[in-house]
């Protein structure tokens, strides 16, 4: 393969893929074209130049330094332990046992929708978020945002004081100013505007209504980027009133996603993953019936990766697809144009849907125009799915409005000088409002501007008053879940700073100033509930304890589809069909920008692209080729007279002639972490085309942009080196094993390679006999949806440091578990497979043999112990690890300086220092805690009693941990399945982590 230093030769890559067909699993285009960068990462533990000495250091100086460090190294130990103080309580609080964590239930609100969490608290410090098994939106699982919200709480860049006119002020001055404002604005409140994000909180809604009753001329405006507008308005279009769809994926045999990434975003996505993957489960035996997912999308997403059939289509063409699909199942809508859409594909999907009446489901994505939503709902009604796979309830919103129009009205009022007083409760419209609104200059026309939010951000800067908002872990509040169930938000800790909840801020205007948020919430529910007196006490305590108010899920409402919308003009089909399309999407890691200052999320490799610390102009290989672009070209993007500059990133499987831009980056006032990375895609985003626009032009600037992408890092050499005689195993060892359902039925043991099976137990010596416990893990690739929750959960549980973009680019990201992504098939539409990869805990661990100081050793329960205090940082272990799961602290990555972060750390895990190797330990702190508990109770550890952090977070239940010596344990039963296989089994490492091979359930009539 020729190497092209200037870029990638797509034609040779295509030729190579065509030659290898479906046999080859590949990770990156760089791998296929065998670039130097790729080989660097493949052949070396770290790229060749990554650990180069600084320039200007001579050999002699180096030797001197080495000698000095060798001499000094021994002195390290010559310190006495520092004298410490123990400071007990004066009066001990109830329930707290020092050294034992407590768990409290609360709910995390995200875009107005709550998901239940259980928060681990050590001596009053919340340290870890887990899902609340009692909560319908969680069922015990979490997503990346929930996991990372703990870092949000302790973020040292959070706003800490009340600000007035750019100067430090205080709450009492603010309260006094609000009292004055109340008097001035009375009696009608002319010119009062309240701007909130999406509100489902019954208490907050009641407060706002009270305010509106006091000031009849006041108006309530709601705006949020992920507002659910298209979902609400789509239902309004077809049913005549806004309703809220709740999907039941567990009941659906055939699912069609019309550009809907229901796995990664939207209300209830955590629950939806659980329901979806419960139908990808073969562990139940032959009785289990696999669902089938069709995905039509422009940007490859996790949902596309899970699809049995995926069709890359420009976002604007999805409407055409939806119309064709509707026609094929007999729904009467004006048909779409069939250009670029394979007719037999649509027909086959249509037949599959039609043969699954009542057990199929069509979902439209939030970025899609209303008419696509309307068509999806119509198809579901026509197929009799309503009441079975989808139910409709009243909207979750306390006041379901169209956010875009609501904000448009506000901007109009601002510009005409009608706004006397603007209260912004959360949100950052100066940054994220549509560009044509020019919200910043409109805002300045309001006479008094008040902002409350977690950060002193772009919007706060332009307001007179800024009140630090309380984090949900510091707040009393309430919020509705995806199905309407109310969850009480209770604080885990007193506010770290002088921050207030939105309830307290608005109370200063309703005349309830001085009432605590707790009383506001409790009083509201006391007035609403039928229970009185003691009965209410009991109800309140139960709701707090469980984290949910029983029986508050919204009841289904009956709806009738009208076909009025069908006559409407097509939303997106107009315009120059050949023009380059641009699609805006909230970033999969940092959302709409809300989490920009969260280092964990910034450093999280995004699904599919595995890009960190950046957004990019994401486009397909063919489009890049057509436009003469290479990965890393820095380009100018022009859309309707607006301009932004971005790096180009090529994504296999992206639709042609379409560019995806992730929102949330390019912040100018986010904090030390979030200010800087990426570019601001909001600059191009217009209210006339919020999500999908046409007419983008791309112009090279000639500069290059460096990305920190982990996709080609930690690559494992699959080919071996034919030239290397040691490499007798020069056959291909695919790390992901896949079969179709038919192939699986013919050969249930397809994942086992006979050659590997023959060699994997070859040894001269008798094996070690593991008595007692033998810990092991099974990861079901058929269930894993690549959501990354495990990665952040691990980071939170194990005090894993953030290293920054530069270090990530050098292959030094510290994640103990990574989600490897493999592609199979051509560049245009490859099948995508996720493979979470923690330490394999090999029984014959190559790392252990080479450690010169015994810092990594084997436990009698089969763990590869890593003893940080012994490690001297030779990195031999990492060099010898075939799975590349060891992580080295090249610098002092852990933050030893910022006091607010100390409180966040798990006290049961060492915070690693510089020069120390670290890796996954199967959460040995949890194993030890459970073992101690069981020994004290004179029993053995129960199956399922120990959950590793990754397992507990996993919404798909793809990761199962347990004792493999117990043949009845869940993990043993999974490992006994025919789909079980080990990675690189021929190396005889005997990994304790094994995988269950992926199955696809393709439609027999579609061949792609």
């Amino acid at each position, binding site marked *: 393969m020729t190497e092209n230093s200037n870029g990638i030769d797509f034609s040779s890559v295509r030729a190579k893929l065509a030659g290898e067909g479906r046999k080859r699993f590949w990770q990156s285009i760089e791998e296929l074209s065998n670039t130097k960068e790729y080989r660097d990462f493949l052949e070396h533990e770290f790229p060749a130049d990554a650990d180069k000495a600084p320039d200007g250091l001579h050999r002699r100086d180096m030797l001197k330094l080495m000698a000095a460090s060798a001499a000094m190294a021994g002195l390290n130990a010559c310190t*006495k*332990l520092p*004298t*410490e*103080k*123990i*400071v*007990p*309580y*004066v*009066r*001990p609080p109830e329930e707290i*046992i*020092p*050294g*034992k964590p407590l768990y409290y239930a609360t709910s995390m609100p995200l875009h107005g929708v709550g998901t239940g969490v259980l928060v681990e608290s050590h001596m009053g410090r919340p340290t870890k978020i887990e899902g609340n098994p009692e909560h319908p939106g969680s069922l015990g699982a979490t997503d990346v945002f929930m996991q990372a919200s703990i870092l949000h709480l302790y973020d040292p860049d959070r706003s800490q004081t009340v600000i007035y006119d750019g100067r430090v002020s205080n709450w009492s001055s603010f309260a006094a100013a609000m009292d004055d404002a109340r008097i001035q604005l009375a009696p009608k409140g002319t010119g009062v505007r309240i701007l909130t994000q999406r509100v489902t909180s019954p208490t907050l809604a009641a407060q706002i209504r009270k305010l509106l009753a006091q000031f009849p001329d006041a108006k309530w405006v709601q705006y949020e980027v992920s507002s659910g507008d298209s979902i609400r308005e789509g239902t309004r279009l077809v049913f005549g009133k806004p309703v809220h769809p709740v999907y039941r994926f567990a009941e659906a045999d055939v699912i069609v996603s019309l550009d809907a990434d229901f796995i990664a975003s939207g209300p209830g996505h955590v629950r939806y993953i659980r329901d979806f993957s419960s139908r990808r489960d073969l562990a139940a035996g032959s009785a289990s019936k696999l669902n089938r997912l069709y995905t039509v999308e422009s940007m490859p997403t996790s949902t596309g990766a899970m699809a049995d059939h995926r069709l890359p289509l420009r976002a604007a063409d999805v409407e055409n697809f939806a119309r064709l699909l509707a026609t094929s199942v007999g729904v009467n809508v004006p048909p779409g144009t069939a250009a670029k859409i394979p007719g037999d594909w649509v027909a086959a999907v249509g037949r599959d849907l039609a043969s699954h009446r009542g057990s199929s489901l069509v979902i439209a994505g939030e970025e899609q125009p209303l008419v696509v939503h309307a068509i999806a709902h119509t198809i579901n009604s026509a197929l009799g799915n309503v009441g079975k796979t989808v139910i409709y309830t009243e909207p979750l919103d306390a006041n379901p409005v169209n956010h875009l129009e609501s904000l448009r009205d506000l901007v109009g009022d601002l510009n005409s000088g009608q706004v006397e007083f603007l209260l912004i409760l959360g949100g950052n419209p100066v940054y994220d409002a549509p560009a044509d609104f020019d919200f910043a200059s409109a805002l300045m026309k309001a006479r008094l501007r008040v902002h409350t939010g977690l950060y002193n951000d772009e919007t706060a800067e332009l307001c007179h008053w800024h009140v630090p908002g309380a984090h949900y872990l510091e707040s009393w509040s309430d919020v509705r879940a995806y199905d309407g169930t109310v969850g009480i938000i209770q604080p885990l800790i007193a506010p770290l700073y002088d921050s207030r909840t939105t309830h307290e801020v608005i109370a200063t205007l309703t005349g309830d100033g001085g009432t605590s948020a707790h009383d506001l919430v409790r009083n509201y529910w006391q007035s609403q509930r039928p229970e009185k007196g003691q009965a209410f006490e009991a109800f309140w305590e139960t709701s707090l304890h469980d984290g949910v108010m029983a029986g508050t899920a919204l009841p289904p409402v009956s709806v009738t589809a009208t076909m009025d919308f069908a006559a409407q003009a097509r939303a997106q089909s107009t315009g120059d069909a050949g023009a380059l399309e641009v699609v805006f999407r909230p970033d999969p890691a940092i959302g709409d920008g809300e989490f920009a200052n969260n280092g964990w999320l910034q450093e999280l490799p995004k699904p599919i692209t595995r890009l960190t610390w950046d957004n990019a102009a994401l486009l397909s290989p063919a489009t890049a080729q057509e436009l003469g672009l290479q990965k890393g070209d820095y380009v100018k993007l022009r859309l309707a007279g607006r301009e932004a500059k971005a790096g180009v990133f090529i994504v296999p499987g992206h639709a042609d002639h379409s560019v995806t831009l992730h929102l949330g980056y390019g912040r100018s006032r986010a904090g030390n972490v979030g200010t800087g990375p990426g570019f601001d895609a909001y600059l191009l985003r217009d209210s006339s085309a919020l999500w999908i626009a046409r007419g983008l032009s791309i112009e090279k600037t000639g500069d290059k942009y460096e990305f920190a992408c982990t996709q080609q890092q930690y690559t494992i050499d699959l080919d071996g080196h034919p030239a290397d005689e040691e490499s007798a195993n020069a056959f291909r060892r695919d790390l992901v094993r896949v079969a179709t359902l038919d192939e699986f039925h013919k050969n249930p043991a397809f994942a086992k390679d006979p050659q590997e099976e023959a060699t994997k137990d070859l040894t001269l010596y008798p094996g070690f006999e593991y008595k*007692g416990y033998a810990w092991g893990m099974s990861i079901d690739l058929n269930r894993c949806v690549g959501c990354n929750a495990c990665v952040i959960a691990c980071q939170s549980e194990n005090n894993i440091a953030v290293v920054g973009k530069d270090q990530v680019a050098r292959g030094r990201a510290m994640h103990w578990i990574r989600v490897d992504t493999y592609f199979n098939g051509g560049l245009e539409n490859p099948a995508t497979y996720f493979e979470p990869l923690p330490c394999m805990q090999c029984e014959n661990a190559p790392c252990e043999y080479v450690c010169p100081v015994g810092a990594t*050793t*084997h*436990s*009698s*329960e089969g*763990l590869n*112990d*890593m*003893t*940080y*205090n*012994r490690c001297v940082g030779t990195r031999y272990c990492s060099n010898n690890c075939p799975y590349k799961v060891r992580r080295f602290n090249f610098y002092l990555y852990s933050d030893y300086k910022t006091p607010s972060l100390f409180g966040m750390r798990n006290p*049961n*895990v*060492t915070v690693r220092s510089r020069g120390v190797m670290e890796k996954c*330990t199967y959460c*040995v*702190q949890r194993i*030890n805690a459970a073992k*101690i508990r069981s*020994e*004290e109770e*004179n029993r053995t550890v129960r199956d399922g009693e120990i959950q590793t952090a990754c397992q507990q977070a996993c919404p798909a239940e793809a990761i199962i941990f347990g004792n493999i010596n117990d043949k009845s344990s869940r993990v043993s039963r999974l490992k006994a399945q025919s789909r079980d296989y080990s990675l690189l089994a021929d190396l005889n490492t005997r990994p304790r982590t094994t995988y269950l091979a992926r199955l696809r359930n393709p439609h027999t009539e579609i061949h792609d």
Partner: protein
Amino acid sequence: MAQIFHRSTNLIARASIYGAVLIIGGLGYALYAIALSPWYTEQGLERQQPVPFSHRHHAGELGIDCRYCHTSVEQSSFAGLPPTQTCMTCHSQIWTNASMLEPVRESYRSGQSLAWTRVNALPDFVYFDHSIHVSKGIGCTTCHGPIAQMALTYRAGTLYMSWCLDCHRQPAQYVRPRSEVFNPFYEPPSASHPVMFEGKEFTDQLALGRLAVKEYKIHTLQYCSTCHR
């Protein structure tokens, strides 16, 4: 040819070779001795405390159970240090005017905690758990020494890893009946002082220990992640 070196050079050479070996060895020994010396290990060092609390008086003479103050020793990794309130349960009634106890009363009045100096400290990378040790029949005094005789509290053992491993390798030498765990006057069985365990009388620690190891299912955990993680 004349000798280049004087005859005495032989002696000097010998002396310097043996001398070097001796000096290096001596230095090594000195370092070793220092590392084990109470100066370095702080073994036996009585710490100054805000209140000169005497375990001899409270645990020894008055016979207050260890768990009256160290409440979480049976449930948690941390044995627990008594909150001021615990002191005041008695000292609001007795010795109410003792000047020695003024810091305790002041703490109770002001709500400011007493700051005790840690006596038994382990490095932060060691995760020791009290509850499992006491539930497996390791007595308080096994590690904390003759606490009932300590006027001011001092560290009884080195708390080195080798010291931990002494017991983790041969628990039978140290383990005692669970009923005796919190007895600060417990003495291991001997001919003159037999100990009852499981209805039998023992005069030999090893015999008692072996039975206790079996009865209490004591493992000899020695792999690293037992304590380091």
